[in-house]
Structures are given as structure tokens and as C-alpha cells.
């Protein structure tokens, strides 16, 4: 029953006060019809306890019995409001911990190059501030100068500091861990991401979702049926000569009504949002969480979600006329000034193969050719040799001379400008004239088939060979996708790669369908297509051009590092910017629905045992035949009623941890989950109260007067 998380005690005075306020009949009537009925029963029973002898027909126990019943009834209601307050307190705790970050800090505003200390609240968008190591960034902004590691753990939970440099966005409230940076403020006061997040979580006292409404209606319907049953029973029992006590009738009503689920319903909903918040996913509406559980098609970006997003060289493929040595030397040279991970990986691979261009000196002195979107290649341009023919082999005479090195020497010797380039196959083909096009294309296709991306390397207009770049799959992605698959969710991978590469990666990762050579705008089309087929679609996005698709998708998970438009459009935001988190959101959504279903089933199944506890107590005094129903042989009719009520009440706090944590979820076929949950909560719901009521009765029997 004791449920503690961190330093927060369950008996926090705030929670107690809040749960007491929620006992107000007005609040209950609006939010929980079942609990409202229980409270009405409490008031009536209390009334009878205070004014005894009001009716000889319906009141025939001593007033102690009524007081006991009344206390248990109000305790039932309080347990319900307590569970709600507890889950709300957890949501608030998260908000508070975020609020603490937002304390006002001293900022060093740059005015004409001078640092002027000002309060962070006085900053306006466009202001520039300098932040040193150990200081807190006053508000969201963009780095305009310097690079630094930034500790974002308070915001994202990511413990490793993140490297940020010029033009990267930084979040207010995060700490600079090294060096100093200059930040241009972009957010208005009170409009930063932190504020946005706080308001999102506080909004957790949200409108009810569709499923929740349907369930509330079902519960209200059941309650009404049982009210009819108990109400008519009172009259019919009277005419048939049973002396039915009104408190016992109320006890029967409260026992039969689905009080357990009625009590825990609000807590379950809030807890779902909480659990996502704990995983650093901010949900904008409860609807999003539920939709996540329903999701049956996931549209995933290849880069960043399925693969690490950093392509690495894995092999060099020379064309017919060249050797491996040639292509390695050329690729090395072309990547020498390339700072991208791809370029570096080429150098690394060459180093592993212990191959270095024999014309290293020239490479060192070369001029870089930067990548631009028009030419789509990069590389180096060797500077014309100064002391040309003094030494024919200046760099290292020990190294074997390959065709590439000799060719470069020849060209240098004849004073032709040498450019060593690498780029996409079609981009290189445009500038290369001396190449066997068919061979190049065939080899490029071979590379694609293995899941790699081919990159062609050329010296001036002669293509030397290809570098195969491959994106590595994310750790565990195969297992994660496997789990998703088992639960019947289809996965679609969207990528700009060609079909062959895409298929290969999909096969490796266990993806069902691919959408190759896709532009970002194709996402929206795919989302709409799938929805028309009746699927519930989940997708991830971070760019502004993802926004329409994010808004259209049933579950749109935006990355925190993404653009504001994307965050606005999505119904969930992942603070860690980890796209594979969508799998977690799906899992939590399912858990939320399952918890509701399980506790409802449990609650209804409990009724069987409660009938067998209370009905003998009502009938057996007058009708000896009803003794046959007395399966449990409880201490006395009064103790039977009290025990049933106590069971009914204490089962609520016992189930609070379950409703806050959620039903255990394992990735397995739905059928299996169903059987398992039915056995635990259905059959268990029938059996447990028999045992529970009997146990409580034995305990009560010890103290019975």
C-alpha cells in the first residue's frame, strides 16, 4: 500500500489536503458518478446512525454497525480521491523540478562588445549574452560565437554533455559545461521551451478521451442497473417478509457497483501522461497517448531512427583499370580536407588498411574544394609544384608507386592542375569523361545491394573507383522493431536512398515496407494513404516540412531539437530527441488502455464473490434455504457486510501502484496478452475477493462484540 517515489512521501500534506477537497459532492458528481453514489450512501447511513429508530422495518441493527459502515464508505471515497491526488502530485513534482530551473539568473548582456550584468527576465529576443563555463543559459537562443559542451541533463535527462557550436540552438535553463559561448536570445520572456513544457504538463488535468468517456458511460450504466436492482429489492424483500436493513442494502449496492475502476479511472489517465513525462516525452493531450496504443502503422525515418545517421566507409571498390591501392590513395586524398564523419571514416579505413598516398606532401599542401549543392562533390586541388623535378619521388621512395601516384606525378610534371574529387555517382559522372559508364553503374549497384551508398572518386575527369559508405544500424533497433512487429504493428521506412539500399537496410533491421527515394513531402501523402485504409499512423519528425504530416498523423512525435513548427504540429515532443522513443510511446499507450481494461474486468468479476458474501447475510435469517448460498461461512451476517465493505475499500489503495505503474506489458501476440490478462484479472477477480473477504472476516471476527 505504501507507494513512494524518490523523496516524495505519499503522506505529503498537500496530497492529503487535495484529496480531502475532492471529497466535495459537487466535484464527485461532475467527475465520478460511481463515487458520488457511494458518498450519497455514506450520508444516508450516517444519518441513520445519528437518528436511530427512524423505521422499524428497514433499520434494525445497532447504531455502532451504522457508524462502522459509514466510516468504511467514506474511506472508500477518500481512497478514490487520494489516488487521483497522488497521481496529480506526481505530475506536479515534475513541473516543480522544471520550474526550479527557471529561477532568475544573472546574464551578461553584450552591449557594444562590453559585458553588462542584467537580470535574465529583462532580456529580449535579439539580445546577445555571453555565457561562461558553469553558468546557466538565461533563455532559449542560438549560438553566434564559440563552441562548448552543454549539460542538458536537467531538461532531457541525458547525462552526457552535448556538443554545440555556432548556429546550434540552446535551451534556457541548461548549463554550459566548458568554454564560453555567445548566445543570441530568440525566445520572449515566458515563452521559452521550458514554459511551454510546464504548461503542457500542468494541462495534464485534461479533457476526457473517447475511451475514457465510453468507459465512464458503461460504469454509470452498470451503476444504474444495480441501483434499480437494490431499490426494487428493498420493496420486494419487504413484501416477501425479509427484514432487510437499509445499511445492508446500501452495502450491497456499493459492493456491486464498479467502485474499484470508478475510483482509479482518473488516476490511471494522469499516470499515463506522467509515465511519458518521466521518459522525457511531453504529451499535449491524453488523446495522443491513447492513439499511441492504437497505432498499427509506424512511419520511421531511416536516418536517426533506424540507423545512427553517420555513414561510414566500409569498403573501397576500384574500377577495372585500377587496383585497390589506387582507389584508397585517391579516396584518402579527396577526403583529406573533409571534416564530415563520412570523410573522416574514409581516412580511418585507409589507416586501418595501412595505406597512405605516396604523394602525401602534395596532399598536405593542397587547397580544399568544398562541397556545394550545385556540384555535389568535394575534394582537393593540388597546388602547383614549386621544386618540380629536383626529386622525382619526393615523398617516400620506399612506398610502391601505383598508377594513381604515377599519374599524379605525370600531371604535376606537365603542370596540369590536379583535382581529386569524390561525390555521388551521378555527380561525378557529369564531370568525368574517361570512364566505363556501364561498369561504374554496375559496380555502384553492387554496392547498393549490400546496403551501402556508393561514392565515386575521380582524378580530374577519370573515375578511379567507388567508396562504399554504410550507415550502421542503431543498437537494439532490431530487437525493438521485433517487439513492435509481434504486437501487430507495421513499420514503414522512409529514406532518400535508392530502393536497393533501402531494401537491404530494411531487411537487416526487420522493417516491413520501404519508401525509397522519398522527399520529405512524401511523408504527408503516405500518412494520408495509410489513414484512408483505416490505419492509426504514428510518425516522427523534426523539420518544418514534417509539420503537416505530424499534424495529420494520429501520433506525431516531434524531436526537441527540431523546429518550432514541428513541435507545434506534433502531439508529443521528445525532449531527448531520440526518434526510437516512439516505440516507447506506443508501449505506454497500450499499457494505459490495458490498465483500464484490466481493472474494469477485475471490478466486475469481484461482484460474484460479493453476492455470495452479502446475500446469505440478507436472507438466511428468514429463509433457511438461502443458507445453501453461504459458501464462505462468515462469522455473522453483520461481519459479512462489514468485511465485504472493507474489502471493497482497501482493494483501491492496493491497486493504486498498479494503476500508476500500469499493467505489465510484454511484446507478444494480442491473443496471448488477452488470455494472460483474462486469467490474471478476470479469474483472479473472481477468486481473490472470496479469499480476501474470508480473511478480513476472520480478522473482524476476532474483535466482534
Amino acid at each position, binding site marked *: 500500500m505504501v507507494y513512494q517515489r524518490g523523496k516524495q512521501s505519499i503522506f505529503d500534506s498537500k496530497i492529503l489536503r487535495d484529496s480531502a477537497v475532492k471529497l466535495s459532492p459537487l466535484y464527485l458528481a461532475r467527475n465520478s458518478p460511481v463515487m458520488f453514489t457511494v458518498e450519497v450512501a455514506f450520508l444516508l447511513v450516517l444519518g441513520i446512525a445519528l437518528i436511530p429508530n427512524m423505521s422499524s422495518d428497514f433499520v434494525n441493527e445497532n447504531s455502532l454497525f451504522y457508524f462502522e459502515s459509514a466510516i468504511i464508505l467514506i474511506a472508500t471515497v477518500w481512497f478514490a480521491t487520494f489516488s487521483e491526488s497522488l497521481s496529480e502530485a506526481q505530475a506536479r513534482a515534475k513541473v516543480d523540478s522544471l520550474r526550479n530551473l527557471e529561477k532568475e539568473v544573472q546574464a551578461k548582456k553584450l552591449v557594444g562588445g562590453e559585458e553588462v550584468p542584467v537580470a535574465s527576465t529583462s532580456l529580449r529576443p535579439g539580445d546577445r549574452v555571453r555565457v561562461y563555463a558553469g553558468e546557466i543559459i538565461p533563455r532559449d537562443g542560438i549560438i553566434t560565437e564559440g563552441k562548448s559542451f552543454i549539460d542538458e541533463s536537467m531538461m532531457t535527462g541525458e547525462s552526457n554533455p552535448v556538443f554545440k557550436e555556432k548556429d546550434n540552438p540552446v535551451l534556457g535553463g541548461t548549463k554550459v559545461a566548458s568554454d564560453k559561448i555567445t548566445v543570441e536570445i530568440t525566445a520572449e520572456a515566458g515563452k521559452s521551451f521550458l514554459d511551454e513544457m510546464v504548461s503542457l504538463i500542468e494541462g495534464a488535468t485534461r479533457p476526457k478521451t*473517447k*475511451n475514457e468517456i*465510453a*468507459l465512464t*458511460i*458503461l460504469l*454509470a*450504466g452498470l451503476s444504474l*442497473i*444495480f441501483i*434499480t*436492482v437494490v431499490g*426494487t*429489492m428493498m*420493496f*420486494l*424483500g419487504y*413484501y*416477501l*417478509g*425479509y427484514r432487510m436493513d437499509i445499511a445492508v442494502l446500501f452495502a*450491497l449496492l456499493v459492493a*456491486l457497483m464498479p467502485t474499484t475502476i470508478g475510483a482509479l479511472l482518473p488516476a490511471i489517465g494522469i499516470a499515463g501522461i506522467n509515465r511519458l513525462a518521466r521518459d522525457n516525452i511531453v504529451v499535449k493531450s491524453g488523446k495522443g497517448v*491513447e492513439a499511441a*496504443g*492504437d497505432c*498499427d502503422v509506424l512511419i520511421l525515418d531511416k536516418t536517426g531512427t533506424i540507423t545512427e545517421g553517420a555513414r561510414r566507409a566500409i569498403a573501397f571498390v576500384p574500377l577495372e583499370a585500377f587496383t585497390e591501392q589506387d582507389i584508397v590513395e585517391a579516396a584518402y586524398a579527396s577526403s583529406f580536407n573533409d571534416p564530415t564523419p563520412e570523410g573522416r571514416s574514409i581516412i580511418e579505413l585507409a589507416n586501418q588498411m595501412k595505406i597512405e598516398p605516396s604523394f602525401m606532401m602534395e596532399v598536405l599542401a593542397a587547397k580544399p574544394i568544398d562541397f556545394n549543392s550545385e556540384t555535389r562533390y568535394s575534394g582537393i586541388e593540388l597546388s602547383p609544384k614549386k621544386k618540380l623535378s629536383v626529386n622525382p619521388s619526393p615523398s617516400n621512395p620506399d612506398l610502391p608507386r601505383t598508377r594513381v601516384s604515377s599519374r599524379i606525378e605525370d600531371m604535376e610534371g606537365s603542370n596540369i592542375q590536379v583535382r581529386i574529387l569524390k561525390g555521388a555517382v551521378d555527380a561525378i559522372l557529369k564531370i568525368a569523361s574517361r570512364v566505363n559508364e556501364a561498369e561504374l553503374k554496375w559496380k555502384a549497384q553492387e554496392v547498393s545491394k549490400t546496403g551501402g551508398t556508393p561514392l565515386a572518386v575521380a582524378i580530374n575527369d577519370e573515375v578511379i573507383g567507388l567508396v562504399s559508405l554504410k550507415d550502421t544500424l542503431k543498437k537494439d533497433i532490431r530487437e525493438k522493431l521485433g517487439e513492435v512487429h509481434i504486437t*501487430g504493428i507495421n513499420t514503414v521506412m522512409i529514406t532518400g536512398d535508392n530502393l536497393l539500399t533501402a531494401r537491404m537496410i530494411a531487411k537487416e533491421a526487420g522493417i516491413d515496407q520501404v519508401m525509397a527515394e522519398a522527399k520529405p513531402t512524401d511523408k504527408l501523402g503516405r500518412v494520408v494513404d495509410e489513414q484512408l*485504409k*483505416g*490505419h492509426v499512423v504514428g510518425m516522427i519528425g523534426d523539420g518544418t516540412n514534417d509539420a503537416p504530416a505530424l499534424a495529420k498523423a494520429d501520433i506525431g512525435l516531434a524531436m526537441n531539437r527540431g523546429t518550432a513548427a514541428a513541435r507545434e504540429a506534433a502531439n508529443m515532443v521528445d525532449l531527448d530527441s531520440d526518434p526510437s522513443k516512439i516505440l516507447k510511446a506506443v508501449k505506454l*499507450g*497500450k*499499457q*494505459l*488502455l*490495458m490498465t483500464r*481494461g*484490466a481493472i*474494469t*474486468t477485475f471490478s*466486475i468479476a469481484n*461482484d*460474484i464473490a460479493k*453476492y455470495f458474501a452479502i*446475500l446469505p447475510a*440478507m*436472507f438466511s435469517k428468514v*429463509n433457511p*434455504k*438461502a443458507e445453501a*448460498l453461504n459458501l464462505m461461512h462468515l462469522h455473522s451476517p453483520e461481519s459479512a457486510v462489514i468485511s465485504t465493505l472493507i474489502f471493497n475499500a482497501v482493494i483501491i489503495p492496493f491497486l493504486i501502484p498498479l494503476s500508476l505503474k500500469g499493467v505489465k*506489458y510484454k511484446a507478444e501476440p*494480442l*491473443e496471448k*496478452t*488477452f488470455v494472460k*490478462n483474462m486469467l490474471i*484479472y*478476470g479469474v483472479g477477480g473472481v477468486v481473490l475477493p472470496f479469499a480476501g473477504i474470508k480473511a478480513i472476516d476472520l480478522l473482524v471476527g476476532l474483535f466482534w462484540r
Partner: protein
Amino acid sequence: MLIGFGIMLILGFSQQSGPTGLETRFGNFGTVLFNEASIATNTGSANSALTGMSPNAVIGLFLGMFVQAIPGADGLGMMMMIVFVILTLFLVGLMVGKTPEFMSMKINPRDVKIAAFVFLIHPMIILIPAVVAYTTDNAQTVVSGVSSPMTFTQVLYEYTSAAANNGSDYLGTSANTAFWNWSTAWVMILGRYPPIGLMLAIAGSFTTRDRKEVVEPIKTSGPLFVGVLSVMVFILTVLTFFPFLVMGPFSL
């Protein structure tokens, strides 16, 4: 499949009953089987006087009328079963973490609301008239002036039979009074038309709904679903009337 379920239900009832009174050409088992089958399928014909039947057999008859969802029944059978299926799917769907679906269409709050109404009507039009009959002394005058479990069983049977579109009768000719005729007539009207209207509303809203091209998460066939459905039917109807069965036929 569903008809098999119906037969299973009927057999379940007939096993627990055994007539004490009337002998017929069919013998005990045959008589009870006929009565159970005819009453569970809402036809209302009987091949023996009900007064001669054992309490267990009468409970069986009651259960058949409370459930009134035997597919193929003459009346609301299949329709009631579909309402049961919707409610069961709702719970089952939640249990596996999916928004509930019926025939690849989402079940929305309105459907649940209507289904809950259908279930609410049934006990109301049986129990409330029974209370009225007692408070207006009509019940007592018609049956020998005493309030015994027997008379209660008869009164309950009258309205249950009327509400379930049955037509079989337990009160005998002594009930041919204005009160009984009028009240039974009203219960018959309320027992038949409002549920049909509500079910048409559900059907109507389903016809306008988009049907998904997706495989349903939970198959509505096979022993698993039928088992759960039976338990749901049992809980939703039998538990509602359990105390009255105890007060009536059980105490005979």
C-alpha cells in the same frame, strides 16, 4: 459458431433442472428440453404447465429470458447478442491495449451508451412493475393473498416473460384483470420497441462508419472469444437478477 453457443447454453440449463410434477409423453428430460429451448428462443410455447416444474427448471427458464440472446431466437435474439458482443469487445479491446473495434469499425462512446441503455431497460421493466404490483396489492389479491416465494416467482415470471417477448405464463387465469392485462401490455411494448429502436440506432451509426482494411485485433470466433462472451453474458444479466432468483424460485 454462435448457434453452437446457444445450444451449449440451453443444454447447460437443462442439466440442472428436473421436473417434479407433470408427466408427459416426452418424459422428464424431453419436457424440460422442449420448454427450455422454446422459452430461450423466445417462442413462448410450452408443452407442460409451468407450475409442475421443479425450481431448478424454472430458474433455467428465467435465465433463458433474462439473457434473451440466443441467436436465431424468435425476437431479439441475434440483436441482443450483438449488443453483448459490442460490450464484450469493448472490455476485451481495452484489455489488449487497443481501442475496441467491431467488424473493423471503432466502437465509440455513443455505441456503448446505447448498449448500456438496452441493458438498463430490461431489469427496469421487469422489476419496477413487480414492485408496483405488490404496492398496489394486485399481486397479493391475484395469488391466494399470501406473499410466498411462489407468488413472487409467478409475478416475476409474468413480467420477465412479457419483457423478453415470450408469452408463456405462470399466473394462470386468475390474472385476467385490468391491472395485469394493462401492465403486461406496457411491459411488452417497452420490452420490444425501445430496444429495437436503440439497436437500429447502433446499426445506423455503424453503416456510416468507415470500415478499416485492417485485420481485427481480436477475432470474434473461436473458443476463446466465445468463452469470454459467455462469461460476460452471465455477469451482465444473471448477476443483475441473482437476488430475485434467490427470493423467488430458489426458495420454492
